[in-house]
């Protein structure tokens, strides 16, 4: 094969040789998927997120609901005041407590209060190792300042990384990193279960409507039309109100309304598939409706079903976060990314990191699943490409 257009030998083994290596369907899909950098990046992000969410909480030294009120509200990076003695630092929290920090950025303890000198707008704290010596917290100005025992301001500051809690603590002193991993676990679990249930309901509904056709189809699709004119958000909220329960309620609420799109997609697929010869063949040898639907039609429509299901996951996560954010989500002490965002809105001005960290994770999850869904759509079923 030195010359590109040389004639192949007319006889022999080469004659019907296929030059390219043959691929199975799965390999083919994977190759097409891996060609898209966004899809691949999305897949890696999804796997990393899943690993963090599933394994992370058990590796963490903290638990998601353990409150350490004395160390509440410390951000991941903070500016601490340099103490008169070497190697010691003081951090003033948003609610004006003083936390002693070492030079590595480890949080040691909250300084015990000695006296509240409210006439001078100062609070004194014991700062020595044996509770000797005092520092004053002066809150007369807008920005609180620390004064040493003689009343001179401690002006020197240093930016430190929080070594005790890598991503800081929330308003109740819970470790944010652990809560993020735990919250992602709950959010992802809700989304996966809801997507799976919607997939099953939508596939069966759409499959039955499409295969039976005629009047059954007309009625079933009219029902779908009616459901889709009402905003689903309202119904998820109503169902959630009815069911009261936390986690189960939210899963049932999300599972019971989002199958409409899935039903439409599956019906469309089944409508075109049922005209094909293999269905006729199956009917000829006497297969029943159920068998044709479950073993012939639905497996053939699996590509678009999977794509639609993947796209359901980000919308379920979004919906869960939305409901938690308006205050009807998962009940404490459990936490999801949405409830973490909701908890943090009150302290947005003083501790924005408490909101932006979970919000960032929600965005990451949404991006990752959207990219994977797009990639799957293009590689599983090139005809679906819009």
């Amino acid at each position, binding site marked *: 094969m030195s010359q590109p257009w040389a004639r192949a030998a007319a006889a022999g083994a080469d004659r019907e040789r296929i030059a390219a290596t043959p691929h199975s369907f799965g390999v083919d899909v994977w190759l097409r998927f891996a060609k898209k950098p966004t899809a691949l990046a999305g897949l890696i992000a999804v796997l990393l997120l899943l690993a963090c969410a599933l394994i992370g909480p058990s590796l963490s030294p903290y638990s998601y609901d353990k409150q350490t009120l004395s160390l509440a509200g410390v951000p991941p990076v903070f500016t601490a005041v340099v103490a008169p003695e070497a190697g010691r630092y003081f951090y003033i929290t948003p609610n004006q407590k003083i936390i002693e920090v070492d030079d590595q950025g480890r949080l040691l303890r909250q300084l015990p209060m000695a006296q509240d000198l409210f006439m001078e707008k100062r609070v004194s704290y014991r700062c020595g190792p044996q509770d000797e010596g005092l520092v004053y917290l002066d809150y007369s100005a807008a920005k609180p300042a620390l004064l040493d025992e003689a009343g001179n301001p401690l002006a020197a500051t240093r930016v430190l990384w929080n070594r005790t809690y890598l991503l800081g603590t929330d308003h109740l002193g819970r470790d944010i990193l652990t809560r993020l991993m735990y919250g992602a676990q709950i959010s992802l679990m809700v989304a996966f279960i809801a997507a799976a249930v919607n997939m099953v309901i939508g596939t069966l509904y759409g499959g039955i409507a499409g295969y039976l056709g005629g009047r059954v189809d007309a009625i079933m699709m009219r029902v779908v039309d*009616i459901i889709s004119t009402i905003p689903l958000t309202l119904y998820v*909220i109503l169902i959630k109100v009815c069911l009261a329960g936390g986690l189960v309620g939210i899963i049932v609420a999300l599972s019971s309304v989002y199958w409409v799109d899935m039903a439409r997609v599956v019906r469309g697929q089944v409508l075109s598939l049922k005209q094909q010869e293999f269905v006729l063949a199956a009917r000829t040898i006497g297969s029943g409706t159920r068998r044709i639907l479950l073993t012939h039609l639905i497996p053939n429509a699996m590509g678009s079903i999977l794509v639609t299901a993947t796209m359901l996951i980000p919308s379920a996560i979004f919906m869960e976060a939305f409901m938690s954010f308006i205050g009807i989500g998962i009940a404490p002490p459990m936490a999801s990314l949405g409830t973490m965002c909701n908890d943090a809105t009150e302290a947005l*001005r003083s501790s924005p990191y408490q*909101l932006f960290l979970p919000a960032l994770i929600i965005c990451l999850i949404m991006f990752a699943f959207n990219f994977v869904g797009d990639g799957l759509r293009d590689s599983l079923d090139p005809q679906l490409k819009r």
Partner: protein
Amino acid sequence: MRAYILKRLLMMLVTLLLVTLLTFTLMHVVPGGPFTRDKQLPPSVLEALEKKYHLDDPLPKQFLDYLSGLLRFDLGPSFKYTGKTVNDFIESGFPYSGKLGLLTLVFVLLASIPMGILAALKNGRWQDMLLMGLATLGVTIPSFVIATGLLYVAAFRLGWVPTFGVEKWQGYILPVLALGGYSISFLARLMRSSLLEVMGQDYIRTARAKGLTETRVIVRHALRNALIPVVTVLGPTVAGLLTGSFVIEKIFAIPGMGAHFVNSVTQRDYTTIMGMTVFYAAFLISMVFLVDLFYCLIDPRIQYK
């Protein structure tokens, strides 16, 4: 045409009836009933309360009463706030929500359509990349994240706009941006892909071959056709804006209907939840109906069957 409109109106009424029935059923299967509080009420008080709100009537009668109330635009009393009716909540909230929704809709249309057109005309160039990158961000980032982010940066750190309240017009800037973010991105993407598709059609080539200027080709021939898919999704877009306002009104402390609805949900004020759901559904169904009529007007190919 008239038959089509009549048929659609009938469908609308059926849908509305079903929505009411569904909402009514859901609100009556709630375990415990509306008067379950932390403190147990004495049976006689409970009985009197049930009598007052006609909850001791058989369910079908209650439903018919509710329906006849609906026909008179009477959504009933609130169970939680004595002396308040659901109508009061809607009347006090609708001006705010309506204004916010309308402003956002106008803003969404004015921003997304030019964005989509620009991206399609500059297909593959940096303008397209930039706009579509922004649009991808817009459809993936939840509105409450956009809202709180904007609030923190523009109101708290920079002090450009008031942090809450809509007494001044500047108060509307952030809510409109946050509420419209998703729709702008979605519509811009749709506009771009639909215009790109239209630009490849034969009649565009014909129009160019006739010697029309490029502006005229785009404005007269391409845009009119490319706008059709955008008009189709206007109904759902309005729905999205309406339900999206639940969180936006909460974040920016706007005393609109969304805020009342969320409040009634967390307070478990069943009649208010029911009344507002029916109101929202009726409003949305009529919006979708109007959009459909408009759709028939701009696309003469559509048959009214």
